[in-house]
């Protein structure tokens, strides 16, 4: 199990690094798709199968397709891409990145995190359990989310119109 986890973690980390390093935006988008799929594998290992499938369908299946539409619509050429920040910006960003990652990892390692004993492993994270919580306790956020999606739809159509 640990070997599988390390493999998926390696794939996720490598593709995440490739997202921010590659020149061509299409290559970056495809690398992000690989990252999202490996995060979906993490969700499946964390007893969240419904969230894993939703991640694949919505994130990798709809959001990244939208990204690729826009990248190909804008027809960005290869010379417009790449890491073009000045060297001191690059090194400073990597330094702050290492500091952030280091402090977050120290915070995780020094705290007491332990797995809970889940009574029914096959029910936890199933659509039934999510539905029990989503449509009773979290009903108001659910309705507000539908309102949010309508607003985003109207806003996106208005912003991308050719003439006002």
């Amino acid at each position, binding site marked *: 199990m640990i070997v599988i*986890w390390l493999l998926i973690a390696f794939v996720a980390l490598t593709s995440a690094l490739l997202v921010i390093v590659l020149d061509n935006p299409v290559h970056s988008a495809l690398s992000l798709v690989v990252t999202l799929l490996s995060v979906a594998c993490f969700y499946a290992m964390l007893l969240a199968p419904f969230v894993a499938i939703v991640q694949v369908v*919505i994130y990798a299946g709809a959001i990244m397709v939208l990204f690729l539409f826009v990248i190909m619509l804008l027809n960005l050429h290869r010379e417009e891409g790449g890491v073009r920040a000045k060297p001191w910006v690059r090194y400073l960003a990597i330094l702050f990145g290492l500091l952030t*990652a280091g402090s977050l990892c120290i915070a995780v390692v020094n705290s007491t995190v332990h*797995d809970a004993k889940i009574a029914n492993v096959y029910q936890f994270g199933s659509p039934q359990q999510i539905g029990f919580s989503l449509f009773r306790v979290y009903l108001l956020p659910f309705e507000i989310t539908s309102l949010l999606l309508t607003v985003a739809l109207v806003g996106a159509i208005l912003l991308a119109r050719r003439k006002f």
Partner: protein
Amino acid sequence: MLNYVPVGAYLVMSAVLFTVGMVGVLIRRNALIIFMSVELMLNAANLSFVAFARMLGQIDGQIFVFFGMSVAAAEVAVGLAIVIALFRNKQTTDVADINILKW
């Protein structure tokens, strides 16, 4: 035991992915790559939520991931529309060229 991997490993993974996204926002100048790095950060936060849902044995973390994904989808739609409108006016996606409001 079903799972030999400790929950802290997922949290460390989430921290590392968040940092990679953060460095991507700081380094790149293409607006679309910056946007993709922000999506990477959102995914790292979602991974943290699901890890804590597993750790505490409560389903609420996964519910929050559900809402976070829908918010991310709405944000991507509006953000890409903004990028398209910007590109139509300035013919560039370089964020260093969008400097009309600078002093």
